């Protein structure tokens, strides 16, 4: 199946000479959740803005649903929803009116029943007649999402949806994303919170200095780049690592009650079997064994760090 969003050699440079995007190419499949990770100023928002029509590209092409975002902007923008990073809302408009306005702007006939459903889903219905300036930050974020959902987009861009949002709302947001995915909506989210990407994304893209460093299935990425550690807790403390275990390069825990063993997660031979046998041979009694996988955060920090 053809990708629903296809970005080819996209560039954006500003009059100041700053290059925000340096030839980005990216395909996004229908129905997937793609998380774009990158530090501030990496080019995430610029890329989204070009796809949505807010910024003119300097070069390259973008198609959405098979249509060019510049030539066939009506067709592409009808199916794109955008929740911007900044909480930009009109101060004097009511919640209901601003959501209905978004629907009209996208050429859809009024549909009060749908808007009521969206507002209820986002716990905004009891605030529907409240002026936007009286809302808290979290509520405004919900309103921005309601606006983007008011015309039932097929592709939804969430630009830092959980920046400055409390834990409850973040969990709500993740559930909403799950429901939207079930309804077949393709979701692209940018985030600083790596646990967020880890939690909900199917694929992860890492972008820095206007270039895509990698795009991978989340699981593949974690197993390819992730390191694993095996921790062995000892029943009786030891003072040093026994000579016989030197080849495993174990590190001794602070209290002498544990060894930590590093190994490659996708390595064919992890060495665990022989290590355990050697531990038994050395006469050590084991109390517990556990493994930890490095998080996406570790992977990301390593990747972006390497680039520098």
């Amino acid at each position: 199946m053809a990708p629903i969003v296809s970005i080819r050699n996209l560039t954006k440079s500003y009059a100041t000479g700053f290059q925000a995007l340096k030839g980005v190419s990216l395909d996004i499949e229908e129905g997937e959740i793609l998380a774009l990770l990158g530090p501030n100023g990496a080019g995430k928002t610029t890329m989204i803005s070009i796809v949505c029509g807010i910024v003119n590209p300097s070069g390259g092409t973008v198609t959405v649903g098979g249509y060019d975002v510049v030539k066939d902007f009506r067709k592409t923008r009808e199916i794109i929803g955008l929740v911007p990073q900044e909480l930009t809302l009109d101060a004097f408009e009511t919640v209901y009116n601003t959501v209905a306005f978004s629907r009209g702007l996208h050429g859809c006939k009024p549909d009060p029943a749908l808007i009521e459903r969206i507002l209820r889903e986002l716990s905004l219905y009891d605030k529907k007649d409240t002026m936007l300036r009286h809302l808290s930050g979290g509520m405004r974020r919900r309103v921005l999402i309601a606006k983007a959902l008011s015309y039932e987009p097929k592709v939804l861009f969430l630009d830092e949806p959980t920046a400055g949002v409390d834990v409850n709302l973040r969990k709500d947001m993740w559930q909403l994303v799950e429901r939207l995915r079930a309804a077949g909506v393709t979701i692209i989210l940018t985030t600083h919170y790596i646990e967020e990407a880890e939690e909900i994304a199917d694929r992860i893209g890492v972008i820095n200095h206007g270039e895509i460093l990698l795009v991978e299935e989340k699981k593949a990425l974690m197993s390819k780049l992730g390191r694993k550690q095996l921790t062995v807790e000892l029943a009786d403390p030891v003072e040093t690592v026994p000579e016989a275990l030197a080849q495993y390069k174990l590190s001794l825990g602070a209290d002498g009650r544990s060894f930590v063993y590093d190994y490659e997660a996708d390595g064919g031979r992890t060495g665990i079997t022989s290590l355990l046998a050697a531990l038994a041979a050395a006469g050590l009694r084991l109390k517990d064994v556990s493994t930890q996988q490095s998080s996406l955060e570790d992977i990301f920090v390593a990747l972006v760090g390497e680039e520098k």
Partner: protein
Amino acid sequence: MNFEAIKSIYAFEMARTRRTLLQSVVSPVISTSLYFIVFGAAIGSRVQEVEGVPYGAFIAPGLIMLTLLNQCVSNGSFGIYFPKFMGTIYEILSAPVAMSEIVIAYVGAAATKGLLIGTIILITASFFVDISIAHPFMMILFFVLTAVTFSLFGFMIGIWAKDFEQLNLVPMLVIPPLVFLGGSFYSIDMLPPFWQTVSHFNPVLYLVSGFRWSFYEIADVNPAISLAMVLVFLAICLTVTAWIFRTGYKLKN
């Protein structure tokens, strides 16, 4: 054509007018009444007649134009500047709306508001002086064309303006001198020849003169030339607006 979008933006803008009813409607009525008291009653009692028309009635079309230009320029500029300032413009730029539709909605709303207030001024004026309209069709044509042209002019200012100072520059500093020196309160025949020549470079002269002609059949310049000048100015504004949208000037860079 995305009619729903045009309707939505237009309705949004008109709702803004309703929210600010006091400053939008009451303040122009009060200032016009003041003009009639000062110019019409105090000065008018000495000037008496200009080209056969009582002075109070003579200045009425000029006063309507003064308000119309101010209202259209400030509404047209504020309407598009405010979303730019607030950041809500993202939504309009990312909607399936052609630039022409954005212009129709914003300029349409600004012109409607200008025309409403212009009509209120006309009604207010009729309480102070006797007003007759010799050519109602031409009067409406001048009225509507001027409203559209200056709303469009305001729209351009709104896109160009970087801050509130620039936004207010034209309505505060450019429009009043042009209107006051454009023969709103006098016939340019009353001026020395040099200033008469200078006045002909003032676009507002043609508007006021044509508009006044549609009321009393007296004019500083031929009404056909007035009409042509309004159309030329409209064409210039349309061209510049088209260029702004083709290049995304200050909106999409």
